[in-house]
């Protein structure tokens, strides 16, 4: 058994001496406190060595065992610290109360060295398991944070969730896909300096990326000037169609201020956005060593085609998406019929709407 550092809290010197003696004889290090107040001061002393276990008397002056337990359980850092209550044989009611308050175990006051050793060892083992568990959780959390820098936050969360494996293996679900890219980007990248193009792309990715995260879209991929984002997966979003449209209008508004600078320098850049709703199959796509969370389905292709068909600055939405979104859309967002579009790969013409947003009153609203 690895020795631990035990805090003995008792107002009578007799009990402290006896307990300290017994604990040191089985290899543990001890620290003493005469009441709960002293114990808490020692436990919250950042400069002092960490305590592994507390042996706590109940009846004490200044601050008794109950108050001490309550204070320990209310403290984030001390909540998991094991506490063994020391009690007389005629104090079983108090023991029950202490255990309900979070004490780990109890020891009779007329100490039996074997019982003391067994209970102290059991509590220290439990604490070590809990500490390991906490370290493990912290590691998982850190990995998830790191992962979320490479993946969409939703996908990063999915990877470490209980049903993650089944979801990654592949599932079918209705989603709303949004595809957006830039008009005139090719001309811009040929005429501007490469450093300028990179600088612009960084600002563009940062701005659009922040909006996608804010609207809780799942970013499937981005390549150069294009983004593919979808909604309702892996996290269910009943208002997925409205979310996509709201995001698109926010992107367009934000893009206007981003591109104003470039416009003055003679580069006219505009977004073209396409949005479509339909069933798709989502899951792990790729090969060992390089997998992506991807979506396959007609909605994705239709969104890309609509984006290609959109006029500069236009948000072109499939009629089905608009119908689903309409009840959830903010009043400021309105739609105009934009005709039936013949899209490559689709045998039937797709009825569409073009989305508009009334200039918002406050800048805060514009980001919604």
């Amino acid at each position, binding site marked *: 058994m690895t020795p631990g550092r035990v805090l003995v809290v008792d*107002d009578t010197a*007799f009990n402290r001496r006896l307990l300290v003696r017994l604990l040191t004889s089985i290899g543990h290090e001890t620290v003493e406190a005469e009441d709960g107040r002293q114990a808490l001061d020692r436990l919250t002393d950042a400069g002092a060595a960490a305590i592994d276990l507390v042996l706590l008397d109940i*009846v004490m002056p200044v601050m008794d065992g109950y108050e001490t337990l309550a204070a320990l359980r209310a403290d984030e850092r001390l909540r998991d610290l094991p506490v063994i209550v020391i009690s*007389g044989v005629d104090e079983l009611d108090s023991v029950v109360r202490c255990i309900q308050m979070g004490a780990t175990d109890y020891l009779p*006051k*007329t100490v*039996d*060295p074997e019982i003391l050793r067994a209970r102290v060892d059991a509590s220290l083992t439990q604490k070590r398991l809990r500490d390991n568990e906490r370290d493990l959780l912290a590691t998982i959390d850190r990995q998830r944070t790191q992962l979320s820098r490479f993946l969409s936050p939703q996908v990063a969360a999915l990877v470490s969730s209980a049903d993650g494996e089944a979801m990654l293996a592949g599932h079918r679900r209705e989603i709303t896909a949004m595809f957006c890219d830039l008009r005139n980007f090719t001309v811009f990248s040929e005429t501007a300096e490469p450093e300028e193009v990179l600088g612009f792309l960084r600002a563009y990715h940062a701005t659009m990326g922040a909006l996608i995260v804010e609207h809780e879209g799942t970013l499937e991929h981005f390549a150069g000037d294009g983004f593919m984002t979808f909604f309702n997966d892996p996290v269910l979003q009943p208002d997925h169609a409205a979310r996509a449209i709201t995001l698109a209008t926010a992107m367009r508004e934000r893009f206007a201020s981003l591109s104003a600078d470039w416009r003055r320098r003679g580069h006219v850049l505009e977004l073209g956005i396409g949005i479509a709703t339909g069933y798709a199959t989502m899951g792990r796509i790729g090969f060992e060593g390089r997998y992506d969370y991807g979506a396959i389905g007609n909605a994705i292709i239709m969104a890309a085609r609509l984006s290609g068909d959109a006029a500069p600055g236009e948000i072109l939405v499939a009629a089905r998406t608009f119908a689903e979104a309409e009840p959830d859309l903010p009043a400021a967002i309105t739609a105009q019929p934009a005709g039936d579009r013949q899209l490559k790969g689709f045998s039937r013409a797709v009825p569409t709407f073009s989305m508009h947003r009334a200039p918002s009153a406050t800048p805060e609203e514009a980001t919604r």
Partner: protein
Amino acid sequence: MTLDPNAMAHLLEITGGDPEFVDELIDTFIDDAQSQIAGLRAAVDTGDDAAAVRPAHSLKSNSLNVGATTLADLSRSIEEDGRGGPIADLAARVESIATEFESVRAALLAERAAR
């Protein structure tokens, strides 16, 4: 019983047969008991019966550990009565505790001397 004849043997046993440490415990018991009795007397003087509970409780548990059975019983009865409200004859009972403690102390020191 002023002193349980097995108590000293028990203390020796649980401390791994270290007579010096048992002596230290006896001294600590005597010191603790004196301040516990002072606490009981202070409760009598101020008429605050509730203040007698904590020293009575501590004296009881220490007495049990050294095998001072009678002293433990006297203390326990004060502790128990005190939890329920005013304690009948507190002053007289505290004095019998003080008298019993003197017998316990004498017995403990005699035990030590006999070793």
